[in-house]
């Protein structure tokens, strides 16, 4: 995607009374923000879905409003129920009118066909009370990529108002599930962070589990039961091919990419004893990192690649441990009641997310030293959190109880207040959030 330099220049922000939202705040702090449909200078059919540039302008506004609403920090209105604007109004808002409707901020923009097969999506963020522009962004893109432009606009707005890094323009790999509980079909699938652009990758004949995107999104590492064995494959998204990561007579599972994408952590069970290993993503000789007669499994790198958090039941129950990337200095960091599992290091480095098992499963966070534990969800089974690219939001899967128990993908922010389900065509588990798209 090509960002338009001239539009992407942020205007200097006013010194006084700036609009902002606090990501650590509560739901009462939601900022009201109007998002009218984006007009087009001339209605042109683009071949995208929707095709006409005026319909695209409305759809872009809908995605921006949905992203902002889903973050839990904003109370967007529109494009339904707010006044349509003209093209000439895009950079010259009628502030008084928006103020009278209670909008503190305003997002306006346009969609234009460029005549070369591309469209331009431009968006602008205004402070309604101060009558000033806060930021702008523009993208020249293939029409079929219009949702990415909308996510980029929402990212620019989120970043400007929250002071945090953006995260909407990103993708999720997960396991799509269907069928009865005792014979579930589990397929590898990918989608945008909001559930759109969904695509199944495996056909369900072989069980797939625990996917992870490579940092460049070019490949997905996952566990496959192909050949009735537990083995780790790397799937090349563009080529549609996969290759085995390591050949072993033993079960290999729980794969994780290193932050630079060059290494893969995995677990291998030898005669009933599971330990953690590392191997080059290109193959080669594995390096054993743990060596205990217990179950050592999973693992997640710190964003600087210097440490690994993993789970082990060496104390008698599952707990979290941190070690060097060569396996040195293994230290337990979780000490609360119950068991701790599925640790994932935040891309910001400041927190580790986990599943806490005390009968129920709950998603929580603690510092890498094990302090400041907070549980963010409270349901029957909330499992396996995965961080948003900015380390402010977690996706996880929620399983319901009983014979008809289903799993679904959910999202919660670090306040624990803003929780919502991510729409998937069928049931879902094991969401793995990739980094911000380039």
């Amino acid at each position: 995607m090509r960002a338009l330099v001239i539009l992407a220049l942020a205007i200097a922000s006013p010194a006084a009374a700036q609009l902002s939202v606090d990501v650590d705040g509560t739901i009462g702090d939601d900022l009201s923000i109007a998002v009218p449909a984006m007009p087009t200078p001339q209605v042109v059919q683009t071949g995208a879905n929707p095709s006409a540039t005026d319909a695209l302008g409305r759809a872009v506004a809908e995605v921006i409003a949905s992203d902002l609403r889903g973050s839990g920090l904003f109370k967007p209105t529109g494009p339904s129920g707010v006044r349509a604007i003209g093209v000439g109004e895009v950079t010259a808002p009628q502030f008084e009118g928006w103020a009278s409707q209670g909008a503190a901020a305003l997002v306006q923009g346009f969609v234009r066909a460029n005549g070369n097969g591309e469209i331009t999506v431009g968006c602008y963020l205004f402070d309604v009370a101060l009558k000033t522009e806060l930021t702008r962004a523009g993208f020249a893109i293939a029409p079929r990529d219009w949702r990415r432009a909308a996510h980029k606009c929402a990212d620019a707005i989120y970043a400007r108002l929250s002071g945090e890094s953006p995260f909407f323009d990103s993708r999720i790999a997960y396991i799509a599930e269907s069928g009865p509980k005792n014979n579930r079909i589990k397929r590898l699938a990918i989608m945008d962070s909001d559930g759109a652009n969904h695509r199944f990758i495996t056909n369900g004949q072989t069980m797939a589990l625990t996917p992870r995107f490579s940092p460049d999104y070019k490949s997905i590492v996952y566990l496959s039961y192909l050949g009735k064995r537990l083995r780790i494959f790397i799937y090349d998204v563009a080529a549609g091919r996969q290759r085995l990561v390591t050949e072993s007579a033993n079960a290999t599972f729980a794969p994780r990419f290193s932050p630079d994408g060059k290494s893969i952590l995995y677990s291998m069970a030898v005669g009933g004893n599971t330990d953690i290993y590392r191997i080059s993503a290109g193959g080669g000789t594995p390096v054993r990192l743990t060596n205990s007669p217990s179950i050592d499994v999973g693992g997640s790198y710190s964003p600087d690649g210097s440490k690994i958090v993993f789970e082990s039941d060496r104390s008698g129950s599952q707990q979290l441990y941190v070690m060097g990337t060569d396996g040195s200095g293994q230290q337990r960091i979780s000490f609360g009641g119950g068991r701790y599992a599925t640790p994932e290091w935040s891309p910001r480095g400041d927190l580790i997310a986990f599943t806490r098992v005390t009968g129920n499963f709950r998603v929580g966070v603690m510092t890498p030293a094990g302090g400041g534990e907070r549980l963010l969800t409270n349901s029957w089974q909330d499992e396996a959190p995965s961080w948003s690219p900015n380390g402010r939001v977690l996706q996880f899967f929620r399983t319901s109880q009983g014979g008809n128990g289903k799993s679904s993908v959910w999202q919660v922010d670090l306040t624990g207040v803003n929780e919502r389900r991510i729409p998937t065509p069928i049931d879902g588990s094991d969401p793995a959030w990739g980094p911000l798209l380039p």
Partner: protein
Amino acid sequence: MKNVTTHLVVAASLIALGACAKKKVEDLPLPPDNGSATATGDADADAGRPLPGSQEDFVASVVADRVFFDTDLFDIDAEDQATLRSQAGWLARYPQTRVTIEGHADERGTRDYNLALGDRRANSAKNYLASLGVDETRISTISYGKERPDAVGSDEGAWARNRRAVTVTVR
């Protein structure tokens, strides 16, 4: 005559071991007869009886095709030992048959951990069979973690049924 003798030996050994076998001695199958008796026997008498050496024969012949575990545990208790002894006895009669032991966990653990736990349980059963003289190369293991429950409920009874290692013959 030979058949009857072997039958009695098998039955006697089970009784002597004091195992809490779940099948009555009368239900124990006849051992294979190396073909001669079957070849000359009345075909009608064999109708409905599983093919000797088949998965159906295995299930019908042994105390149970599976052993059960306590929460998070993987030890083989006395009841499991009796079950696995009956499996080892059957395997001794069909030395060409290989088996896969499928290890499972209940739904109250996380996914990756349960894959490791299922592997532990499958290997416990495998090691016990090996200690009874079954060649290890005949036994493979696979863990399904919590992904393939036998009982679908979310209650103690269902969970107890799902913490299992199931022996399946491989054709």
